[in-house]
């Protein structure tokens, strides 16, 4: 499965007012190119922080399902945040990791996620439900289930690194991203 295909499966399952925090690099660009949403927070720098930003939103907006779109390299940079998420245990948080086992945005250098099973790290940290999927047609059921069950929940999607470099970059300025995200999630 390609990363794009994973996003194609996931995006229709997200409601307009549900906050989605994106990790930097291709995660932002794929999601933006497929469907730009006001309630998308595109993090262009600060690698590793999508998870802690998402946790902050989830704690302060307990009535909303908060989704994090993360990358394996981003998760590995901030493994401690998995503990923070599990410790604070927001029921409304769904952490989705697009795991291509490489730092694709910087040229496909290998990451550790081919050897370290991130869903197991999440599970032993204390996430309530964790699912690993490798097939595209398993994504919908898994994501909807994790949206339904009290979290924090973790969905690991194994994908092949095959980003199309002609995919556009996020065109909104950082300031605009802040403004529209805050308005969209109210």
């Amino acid at each position, binding site marked *: 499965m390609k990363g794009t295909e994973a996003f194609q499966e996931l995006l229709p399952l997200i409601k307009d007012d549900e*906050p989605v*925090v994106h990790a930097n690099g291709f995660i932002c660009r794929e999601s933006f190119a497929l469907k730009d949403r006001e309630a998308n*927070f595109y*993090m*262009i*720098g*600060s690698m*590793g*922080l*999508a*998870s*802690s*930003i*998402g*946790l*902050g*939103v*989830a*704690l*302060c*907006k307990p009535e909303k399902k908060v989704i994090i779109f993360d990358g394996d390299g981003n998760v590995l940079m*901030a493994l*401690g*945040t998995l*503990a*923070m998420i599990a*410790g*604070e245990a927001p029921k409304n948080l769904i952490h989705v990791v697009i795991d291509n086992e490489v730092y694709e945005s910087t040229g496909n250098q290998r990451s550790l996620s081919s050897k370290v099973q991130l869903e197991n790290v999440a599970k032993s940290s204390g996430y309530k439900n964790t699912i690993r999927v490798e097939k595209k047609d398993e994504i919908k059921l898994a994501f909807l289930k994790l949206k339904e069950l009290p979290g924090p929940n973790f969905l690991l999607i194994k994908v092949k690194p095959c980003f199309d470099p002609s995919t556009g970059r996020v065109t909104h300025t*950082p*300031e605009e*991203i*802040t403004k529209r*995200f*805050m308005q969209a*999630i*109210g």
Partner: protein
Amino acid sequence: MVASEISKIGKSLNMFPLTSQSFINCLIQEGYKFFTGVPCSLLSGLIYELEGQEEARYIPAVREDAAVGLCTGAYLSGTMPVLLMQNSGLGYSLNAFTSLNLIYNIPILVIMSWRGKDGKDAPEHIIMGDIDKKLLQTARMEYSLLNKENYAEVLKKAKKKIYEEKLPYTLIVEKGLFDERH
């Protein structure tokens, strides 16, 4: 925020003897409801006062950059955040400030302890104690040295920066300003 509202800031700042308790209560009254950070002994009295608060919460962060992420999420959700950290945490959090908060206009009130002041501290604090203010200046992040006399004025300045310019503001805390709890 309009000028009339700004002028209201500091209403709860009629001078009071500065203690960990009075300062935390004042911050909460001023609208800061989300606290996180990594402890420093110089800030231990403040963190002690945060535990068990009903109107505000303190979340123990694993690292200072993760604490910046948490604060960012809180702000984006309409809750004004405070980050408590040792100056050693400035090194860990600098990229978060420069590639996130400063360019996305996401304010945080930072309370940073000054270890290594005047070169009199454990060896690991000496260099950072010398360069932390320079690092803040280089990153164009405004700060004030907090003391028993200036806190009302400094909090007003911070709030202006935070609400009008939507940028972080740092309060630097020296040893002895707040009580320590061990």
